[in-house]
């Protein structure tokens, strides 16, 4: 058994201030200045901590970053003049997919790499769009190993990227026919991808690469964005090549293990050229996420490309179709087509876009991906609120995450922490299912509970009325 993969988180408090969900509304003119004030008695000492910050005198709701709305102060105030309400700044973050709660939990995980734990049951909607209409299975009596949990059992989160021939062929004199397969073994089922919009330029790509090296996974970046990166990090880079041809990465080819081409007419020719420079190179093609991508995958697969990176949009939806579906549906279709064509096991599918939470990673794999690409979530770890305002130069100064000015070590550690928390949570999901390795999770829809199916099965008689 190989050494157990472990990501070591280091507490790294954000340079930005967490936008708290709650704030206080205080009718101070009625305050009696009594000696019984509830504020110093806050169990979490929220008010005292908050006093260290300057407040906007215009605001009607004073943000309380660490308040959790236990309302003890509201109910205890002698004059009843305190109220706790929702901080409007909190509600303004993100969009309909990247909800404020996702930002908050991501920041907490990037702080210390811990699995978010809370009491009092589930608090969200019954089901929702995309991944939120899937539940994962559990087993009553099976754990992956009987060593107990909490660090002692071994669950593998490794995946392979690369061509996977189904059998080896040998000549009559026992020599291997064809090229030996060169697989890249990643210890966790994710790679770090370029953000869906332009952020920060070179600095961020370098941070992503260093993070990938620390995590022993891979980072996608354009060659120009990582110039000057140490040679030791090069094996963890996936240079992204567009229509410009191999010119920009020619020097890198001997150093990297994998290269990704944006799909186009020239892609097969480019792949052959790259392979000629470095025969062990794993070639991937980057495609927009569409159900129809299955055809293209089959076509390219016959031409020898075996790794595909499907890019959904920021919300995990198909790109360039009239009625975009979520990864959940599109991925299942693509996976199913490849299974039917009898080639699924020879191909590696990476899916990205809209992977916002660790359960999205597990669920995308359940729907048929081998691994996922994480992009926006990494920015959120640095304090991004998905405002996407940095597209125009004027807005850059207001980027709350100060993405263009980040100090590398800090940013790397925040990303590492987030991935440590995701890794631990993936182990929780796999452990509960009794699955020993994430490879076995791929396309295992029998171990997922899809809302449509379970609703039909359980409430069919109610729905028919």
């Amino acid at each position, binding site marked *: 058994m190989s050494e157990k993969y472990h990501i070591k988180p280091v507490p790294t408090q954000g340079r930005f201030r967490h936008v708290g969900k709650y704030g206080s509304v205080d009718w101070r003119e009625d305050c009696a200045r009594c000696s019984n004030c509830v504020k110093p008695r806050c169990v*979490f000492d929220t008010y005292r901590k908050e006093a260290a910050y300057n407040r906007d005198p215009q605001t009607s*709701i004073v943000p309380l970053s660490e308040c*959790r*709305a*236990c*309302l*003890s102060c*509201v*109910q*205890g*105030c002698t004059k*009843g003049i305190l*109220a706790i*309400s929702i901080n409007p700044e909190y509600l303004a973050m993100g969009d309909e997919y990247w909800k404020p709660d996702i930002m908050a*939990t991501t920041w907490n995980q990037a702080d210390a790499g811990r*699995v*978010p734990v*809370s*009491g*009092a*049951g*589930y*608090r*969200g*909607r*019954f089901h*929702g769009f995309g991944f939120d209409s*899937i*539940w994962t*299975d*559990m*087993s*009553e*009596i*099976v*754990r992956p190993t*009987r060593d107990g*949990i*909490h660090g002692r059992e071994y669950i593998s989160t490794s995946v392979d990227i690369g061509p996977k021939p189904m059998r080896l062929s040998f000549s009559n004199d026992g020599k291997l026919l064809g090229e030996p397969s060169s697989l890249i073994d990643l210890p966790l089922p994710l790679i770090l991808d370029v953000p869906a919009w332009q952020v920060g330029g070179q600095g961020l790509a370098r941070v992503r690469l260093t993070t990938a090296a620390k995590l022993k996974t891979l980072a996608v970046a354009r060659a120009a964005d990582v110039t000057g990166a140490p040679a030791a990090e090069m094996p963890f880079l996936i240079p992204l090549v567009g229509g410009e041809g191999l010119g920009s990465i020619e020097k890198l080819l001997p150093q990297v293990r994998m290269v990704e081409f944006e799909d186009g007419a020239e892609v097969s020719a480019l792949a052959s050229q790259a392979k000629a420079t470095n025969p062990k190179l794993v070639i991937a093609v980057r495609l927009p996420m569409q159900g129809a991508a299955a055809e293209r995958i089959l076509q390219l697969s016959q031409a020898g490309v075996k790794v595909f990176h499907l890019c959904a949009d920021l*919300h995990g939806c198909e790109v360039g179709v009239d009625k975009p579906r979520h990864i959940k549906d599109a991925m299942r279709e693509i996976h199913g087509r490849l299974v039917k064509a009898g080639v699924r096991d020879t191909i590696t599918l990476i899916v990205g876009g809209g992977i916002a*939470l660790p*359960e999205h990673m597990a669920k995308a794999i359940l729907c048929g991906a081998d691994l996922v690409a994480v992009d926006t979530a990494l920015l959120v770890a640095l304090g991004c609120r998905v405002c996407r305002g940095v597209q125009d130069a004027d807005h850059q100064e207001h980027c709350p995450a100060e993405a263009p000015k980040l100090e590398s070590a800090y940013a790397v550690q925040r990303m590492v922490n987030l991935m440590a928390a995701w890794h631990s*949570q993936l182990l*929780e*999901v796999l*452990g*509960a*299912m*009794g699955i020993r390795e994430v490879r076995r999770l791929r396309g295992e829809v029998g*171990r997922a*509970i899809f809302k449509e199916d*379970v*609703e039909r*099965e*359980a*409430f069919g*008689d*109610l*729905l028919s*009325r």
Partner: protein
Amino acid sequence: MTFSLASSPVQPAAVPAQSVSADAEPDIVVSRQVRPAPDRYRNALGKYKINRSADCVACGECARLCPQGVHVKPDGYTFTLRPLDHLCIGPDCAKTDHFCVAKCKQKALSLMRNPSVDAMGDPRWTADLILSTWHMAATGHVPSAGLEYRHGESGGGFDRMDFNFPAAPTKVDPAKVDTTLALNRRNDGRPQVNIDLPVYGGGMSFGSVSIHTIVAKARAATAWNTFTCTGEGGYPDRLKPYDEHVITQVATGLFGVREDTIQRVRIVEFKYAQGAKPGLGGHLLGDKNTPAVARMREAIAGNALFSPFPFHSVYSVEDHKKHLDWIKEVNSRALVSVKVSTPTDVDMVAVGSYYAGAHIIHLDGSYGGTGAAPDIAKKNIAMPIEYAIAKVHKFLVAEGIRDSVTLIVSGGLRTADDVMKSVALGADGVVIGTADMVALGCVRCALCESGRGCPRGIASTDPELMMLMSLEWATQRLINMLNAWRERMVEVMVRLGVPSVKDLRGRSDLLTYARAEDAL
């Protein structure tokens, strides 16, 4: 001095006096009579706020007008007291002839939504549900207006389900509606256990909640001739007078489980999994493992205590049967309950448990739980209970064993309506946990696990915090809530024309479900 309930006198519940069945003779008698148990904080929270400006001349007209008792001006007082705005029914009052804001000659009164309500609750437990549960716990009755006490706004499951009430009134007499439930259907010579409500309390261990919470649950269970469960923290001495209404839980960590604790009760529960963290073990943080907790659990104070998953001696249904046989051997009168979570094959799990000898199959759905659990597990692992009830009921019927086993469900049941919907889907009865906590004043801030524990003193063994709540008050709150629930259950059954809980079971034809499409 508190006036919060002065103008809404609470009538004793119109339910039978506590009936102690022959097989249940509690050592202590607890009355199930409803008594006022107002909010224990200085300012009770309501959905609305009434502000009185300095223009008020204390004429007292508002106090004379308001039937809810929001305005109080005791005899001999010069000024009207600060409005008890938690009793206000809000804008609906504007349609009446006693709307204080309109009637105030000085225009000194104004009505607004309480900003704190926005910070309360979530789609599953809305602010309305929390506030209405508090109202029920305070008064023993459902709120008359202004609060939605029947369902939440989660957009699925119970919240999209409704009763198919017949248009014409039914002939069912409310006084004769039967809410009792017999728990032993196996005909195996073990004693019958009847409970007066199809509801009992879920396991919450000593350590995760305070001793006041535990004992109050046991006292309320005694009053209503039903049960509470020890959870996995051992059997505190203070529960011993309530033995007849306590379920001993045997869980994977076996903390505090002794022959004595199995022998003293009428039901023993085997916990395989729990809805909040299906497939994962339990974890009591070191902070909460105080010397008292450690003594009870026979552990060392300050150390985190892990309850592993699963039972390391169970690999099959046969092993499972071995465990149940062990319990039955140790206690010859006990019924055995098996608590499992809701995997895809929950129906097979239920059948397996029946053949292993369980009297009660307890399904714990994924959205429930009172203690701390990883967020990823609460949201994503295992199916919500609504689906599991229907699946398992249909499967047990098809297997021909439905009437030989009691199906109890839990995991996210918040209201009496949820109980009735569960029964109509096919459950015999339910287990509640969070609703009890809310009745005791929980606002679901979700901080059960951190630091000193619950800031409201419910799920905390911190000596200072746990004294925020007295045992007498807590007991009465739970008794009152159950009374309100029973009243609502009776109302639903009368309107449906079903005379008993037994007759309602599996009547999914009395439900409608409005499917929701998910769009971004």
